[in-house]
């Protein structure tokens, strides 16, 4: 009974710790040629656990998310769209290189710092076409970069439930713009 209570307590009372281990250095939204562009700089630093996991052949998935919402004073904000892109970081033991893949593109790096720099730099990402938005209305963009725990192998998902080492995420950063 004690064991049951303990497990229940662990399961129920320990929500995943949200440590904002990725700092947002800068973030801005620019409208250029009918496109809403996102420029941002994140400072990522993988901890020892994650680095070891990577070197042990476990791929890590990073997700850049940008939620575009329209504030409404009378109700919850309207969710307009979500832009998201994913980076897959893996270790190539044969060549002792890191590989970052996003969509069809992939690049290899010799050091982890290069990988962190690549993922942390968001350069003129088109998040939405201005034509899809109402002109003259204020919109909010919430930008966030995080490690996708759900894509980890299951044992590590269990680990992630209990350990904060497995949580790597930035605070949502809000930017307002008027198309």
């Amino acid at each position, binding site marked *: 009974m004690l064991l049951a209570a303990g497990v229940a307590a662990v*399961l129920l009372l320990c929500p995943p710790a949200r440590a904002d281990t990725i700092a947002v250095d800068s973030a801005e939204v620019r409208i250029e040629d009918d496109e809403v562009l996102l420029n941002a700089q994140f400072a990522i630093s993988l901890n020892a656990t994650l680095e070891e996991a990577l070197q042990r052949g476990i791929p890590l998935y990073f997700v850049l998310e940008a939620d575009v919402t329209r504030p409404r004073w009378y109700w919850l904000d309207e969710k307009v769209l979500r832009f998201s892109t994913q980076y897959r970081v893996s270790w190539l*033991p044969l*060549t002792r290189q890191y590989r970052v893949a996003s969509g069809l593109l992939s690049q290899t790096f010799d050091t982890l710092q290069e990988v962190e720099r690549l993922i942390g730099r968001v350069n003129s990402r088109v998040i939405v076409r201005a034509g899809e938005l109402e002109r003259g209305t204020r919109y909010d963009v919430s930008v966030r970069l995080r490690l996708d725990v*759900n894509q980890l192998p299951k044992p590590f998902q269990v680990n992630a439930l209990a350990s904060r080492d497995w949580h790597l995420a930035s605070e949502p950063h809000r930017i307002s713009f008027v198309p």
Partner: protein
Amino acid sequence: MSPLLTSGRVRWVLLAAASLSAIALFLLATASANTALFARGYDTLLLLNGVLVGVLILIVVWQLLQLRRKLKRGVFGSRLAARLVLLFALVAVLPGALVYAVSVQFIGRSIESWFDVRVDRALEGGLNVGRAALDSLLKDTADKAGRIANALAETTDPYGAALARAAEQAGAFEAALYAPTGGVLAIAGTGQSTATPEPPPAQALRRARLQQETTEIVQRDEGLWLRVVVPVNSDDRLQPLKVLQVIEPVPRGLAQEVEKVQSGWRDYQEISFSRDALKRLYALTLTLTLLLALGSALGLAVVLSERFSAPLGLLAEGTRAVAEGDFTRRQPVVSTDELGILTESFNAMTAQLADARAHNEESRQAIETTRAYLESILGSLSAGVLAFDDQYRLRTANPSAAVILQQPLADLTGAPLADWGRRLPALAPFAELVADGFRTSRDGPWQKEVSLSVGNLARTVLMRGTRIPGAPVPGYVVVFDDVSELVQAQRDAAWAEVARRLAHEIKNPLTPIQLSAERLAVKLEGRLDPADAETVKRGTSTIVNQVQAMKQMVDDFAIYARTPRPGQLQAVDLSALLLDVLALYDNLRPHTSLALPDGAVVIQGEPTRLRQVFHNLMQNAIDAQAGAESPRFAISLGRDGGEARLVFEDAGEGFPADIVARAFEPYVTTKAKGTGLGLAIVKKIVDEHGGRVTLDNGARGARVTLTFPLATR
């Protein structure tokens, strides 16, 4: 129990929670073993499982709390339920815990057994072998590139032809010449990987400009490639630096093998790294399974226990109802097992009890009715009835008995017959008579007619006594009746008959006797000498007088014996009638006192016969005081309730005691002369008027009291 959470609902909630948990647990177990399933949201699934198990545990805890509350309240059947729960729990928990412990141990051991330093080293070695093979190929390619670069450096031919020739000589797969900035100058080779070959990376170009060679293995989706970038330094110093890139595919077989080694190493590393997490995962799944199993088992145990013990509670309730006298409860029979049979038997028993009680009630009512009937009969009997037990103690006396004896017989209930005389002296003769009756008859039935003095009145009582044989309660019964009136009536009737016959028989010869005597006197008058004539005259005179007296006597008898003539009554004022009659006794006026009330005292009666009554009474008074010097006649008339009361008193000798009882019988007289019919006639006439006559001795002489009912207007 709150209406929201009845045990029925709890059962459904329990069932739902258990089913959901089972499904979630199945998914979890499948997902734990299968990498593809729930690759995303595995933690959510885990949480869902945890929540469901938690809900299950909460339900069980709630159930157990309910059970404890019932135990504390002492609800019947809850102890059995608790014991059953304990048993079920023991049966479920012990094997569950055992299997759980063994499984956790087993999983820990088997996961550990997957890992081995030798395997680790072998895989590492394989990887190194792969690397060595690739390095050797890379070195070959670098040599190839060096040869092509040398050939290009020595020649002055156009790039294209020179590169084609050199590449062919070296047997290169793809060789491309680039400007230091990255622009393509020429391409050659046995097979080109792409139409426009990938330019060398900026870093490689930079290194080439610094006269350094770059060799690398490129992993592409289509396979492994070897890339060598070298600077091409022309002999001609004026010529600008060029960069040569040679790309060779790794042979397909080798590439595949290397890839296998790499993925094998990666998988092994991953599992090795995650072994603790894996153990934790399996342990968690097992724990959840155990908790689900235990929760379901406990919940089911409570529900089943309550189901088992519920009929007991119902039976207890029924028993309590029966104890309180309520036989109408019927417990529903819900099962076909022994408990069901027990419930049925209980219902049958209750029904029988109810029948028995109804029957009992009926017979009791019948007895009551019979008793009431008997009592009413006894109460309406004019005869007195006394019931004694076998020790002659009075058990019951009916009201008539008390009326006849004029004694409070109810006070004597339970008193033995021998004590009656002591407790109520007036009853001593009666008690003696009863005792004597049973004594002389030796418990047989007996009957006797006795004379008793009741309240100064002599009564004739007919008594019958008998032993009640064969009765459930042995005892004796005495029935007695006041037959005074009956005896009197019989006597009256007998005397009336005698008087009537006598009058008839005597009256007939009287007239011839009188006539004969008178004729004798007439015929012999003048024929006899004076002495004889005188004798005859005296004799005939005596005869006539005596005959006259005899006629009078016979008339009196006739009056006495005359049957009453109903329907000739009229309103009579007793005062006027009395004055009328007393006028005839004017000579006695100085000795007469008369007390009359104001107004008329009217009764229904026959004036002539009432006159007769008054005359008779006056005559009696005169006769009683024949020799007295100062006779006295006190007559008073009054109203008493609905009756007129007339009292005649004189100052004579009064009635002798032996006469009082029979004074109204004919020929009972104290007078030397007289028919003895006077009071008999008075009594008869008064009776005919519905009145009463009583005789007693007053202050100085006899007193006669007449009572007549007053006429109603």
